[in-house]
């Protein structure tokens, strides 16, 4: 089949793609986007999570047909235009949320999916938002810290923007 979708802001068109090919294999093996990790065969670890439109989605359980015409964001798409880290990524470093790094891509995308829905999540909501992804190193606390701080940061930014408009 011919597959067309938007990947990290660019339209991708591929020929001769098997319909049942998992998105994870397409990303890692065909496109060389190895920031998305494989951690199990049972769809349980969540390490392969990416964003399809705004929803956190396990790439290992998503046949490529499902993303035709949609927008896929991987960790590589979270970087700025010059390869600089995004605010959530920087917060992961600032709050010590990265150890072995193998779950980090998925955790960042889970945080992003949550923050696109709400900028006022409770710590319990943050925990629920990352609950589908296993981490064996961090005990999750500093990941929660990083997402919570980014929510605050984005709220502050929003306030600054709307505050500016208010003066006019």
């Amino acid at each position: 089949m011919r597959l067309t979708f938007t990947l990290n802001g660019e339209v991708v068109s591929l020929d001769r793609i098997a319909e049942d090919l998992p998105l994870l294999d397409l990303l890692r093996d065909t496109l060389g986007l190895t920031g998305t990790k494989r951690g199990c065969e049972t769809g349980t670890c969540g390490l392969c999570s990416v964003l399809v439109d705004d929803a956190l989605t396990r790439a290992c359980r998503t046949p490529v047909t499902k993303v035709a015409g949609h927008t896929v964001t991987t960790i590589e798409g979270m970087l700025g235009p010059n390869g600089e880290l995004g605010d959530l990524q920087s917060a992961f470093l600032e709050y010590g949320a990265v150890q072995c790094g193998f779950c980090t891509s998925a955790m960042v995308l889970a945080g992003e999916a949550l923050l696109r829905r709400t900028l006022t999540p409770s710590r319990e909501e943050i925990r629920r938002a990352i609950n589908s992804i296993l981490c064996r190193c961090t005990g999750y606390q500093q990941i929660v810290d990083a997402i919570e701080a980014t929510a605050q940061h984005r709220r502050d930014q929003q306030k600054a923007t709307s505050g500016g408009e208010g003066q006019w």
Partner: protein
Amino acid sequence: MVSNLRYVGNPALQNVDGADKVSGRARYVCDMVVPGMLVAKVLRSPLPHARIARLDTAPALAVPGVKAVITHADFVDDGNFGWPVKDAYVLAVNKVRHVGEPVAAVAAETEAAAIAGLNAIIVEYEPLPVIGTVDQAMSPEAPLIPEVSPTGKGNLCNIHILRNGDPAPLLIEAPVRFEATYEMPHQEHAYMETEGALAIPEPDGSVTLYANNQSPHINRDIAAQVLGLPTNLVRVIQPPIGGAFGGKDEILYQTSAQAAKLATLAGRPVKLILSRSESMAASYKRQAMRSHIVLGAETDGTLRAAKVDLTVDNGAYASGTPLASWRATMHAAGGYRYAAVHVDMQSVYTNNGYSGAFRGFGNTQASAAVELAIDELAERLGQDPLEYRLRNCLREGDATMTGDLLDQAVGLADCLEWVRDHSEWTKKRADCAAQPEDGLTRRGIGVACYFHGSGLGGEGEDFATATVKIEEDNSITLTSGLTDFGQGSRTVFTLLAAETLGVDIDRIRVLRPDTQTALDSGPTVASRASIVGGNAVRVTSEKVALLLDLAAADHLRCDPRQLIRDGESYVGPNETPVPFETIVDHAREMGLQLSAQGRWQIRPIEWDFETGTGEPYFCYVFGAQVAEVEVSRRTGRTRVLKIWAAHDAGKILFPKGALGQMYGGIAQGLGFALMENFRFKDGVPQTLSFTQYRLPRATDVPEIEGTYIQTAGAIGPYGAKNLAEPVMIGTAPAIANAFAQATGIRVRGFPLPRVKG
């Protein structure tokens, strides 16, 4: 507190690998692709114990795309390796001893072809009687599992003893005596990245291996030995590692040697990555351990004596168990004062997978048992369990349970007091005791504490090395033979070099271990990287700093002792700062070689394994944790509401990383107590996926309030002690002791049962 330190203990410091990892750019071995690369797959035993009656790999070579196939016969001495017991094989020889044991391996153009190759191999097994329990293993009629019994006593793998005084008369005389048996289950490391190796055959007959191993020099030595190559024709390069926790030693030696042999036979690169179910079947576990504990105390609660018998299930191969079981023996009565203690440990072969190193290295299980026992004893005495521990815990000048005199700062009581005060222990304990009988949930609060010997102790020579070099552009390159599998040692080494050299941290680049550039530093185990590896970095940096001081003194025409530093700059008596670059240039003009190698070694300790006496460790760390739990009457599920943790690790070098170690260790301890339990049924593993083997998720782990008690005087760099392993030890027993207050049920092992009603 005024500190002249720029980097040591600086809370703003970030992980040096963080940007690579958070951007998805870090390249793990599973992400690597090289031209001409083949894919390898391994044929593994479906049976826990069987004779290999027939093994014919020729049909695999006839499968299109298959380029190489190997068995034990392709290795020198059948691929036999292992230390301290040499009972392991790269691929099974004549017999399989556990489910998942590798029998043959295939390399092919594609994964599908490799699997077709495996399916074409003809293998016939004759099942042998399965040993599924330690009691069966010790029966005189039990079939022998290893090729040769290491002790000459059937399936007995090894024993350890501790003899400190004579507890027998004290236990008879003691007015209060407590006796119980505890059974701790196997635990899976469940590192998020499975085991993997990429082997590249080089034109000169050498092999380059990228492998996610903990100890690259040991991997190199074993690969060279089983491949029949000189050591310097095997090069091991270590990419980023997705977690290890003690689990990436022996299994990686097997995996690396398999990939390397296939690559040399095929003349092409070979990548071998284990699937999750394969990893869970084939990798070693935390050993299951039975502790029979007898404690004797005065009527006022003062502990007098302890006698502990440990029985360890090491599974089909010895792996790290002979060493881990020694550590268990040295800690089996806990961090308390006793007049006399005996411990007798026997480790036994079974067909339950195999066991080896896992965070805590035997102390996790041994301390869990004794912390449940101490809690029960305190209850029997009618004493508050936290105050009871404070009454008996080790303090400076005391002797440990092995008789080792503590001539160091001992932060155990400080840790207990910190968790007591921060958890509002006394109030919560009373509130829980007075909770209504008919609530939806039952609450409890519990405590546990621990001590943990630093470094390898009697396990082996405890040294590390480093190299430091100032490059042409005045950046600084650092190597260590010790690895970072996520715990942050690369960051620790970087900050120690920057601190010691007095330079900006951005100048330092720490290379990944490569056996051609880094010097052998022994294994990355025992939470020793920051202490031993860190001291090697410090002493090596001091050598280079000394050269720069000489150059600065020459440039500024003063005595080196008159120099002071202003940031990176050197300042002499004329008080004009001279930039670091100028001093380095001057050093070069003087002809000084601006690189150094260094080695640091812990002084040898003396443990007599025959008599069970001596000094097992050069120093100790301590800690305490409190857990608050809620048990639902409806579902019977235990939920941990909060954990308070304090650990005495001396000077903290990398605060964000140290806290991350604590939180992560606690999550692993929580899993051990509540849900993990790697189960075997007649030697057949029952939990080979993350749906069957549950790991703690973000909503299972509570908020943690943790601290480090920074006692002074330790011999690690800048006064640091170790922390990565011991921080998990207190969690599981603290949760079980909280569960006991909530439900009135004293468990004698993990995981905790569901208790409804």
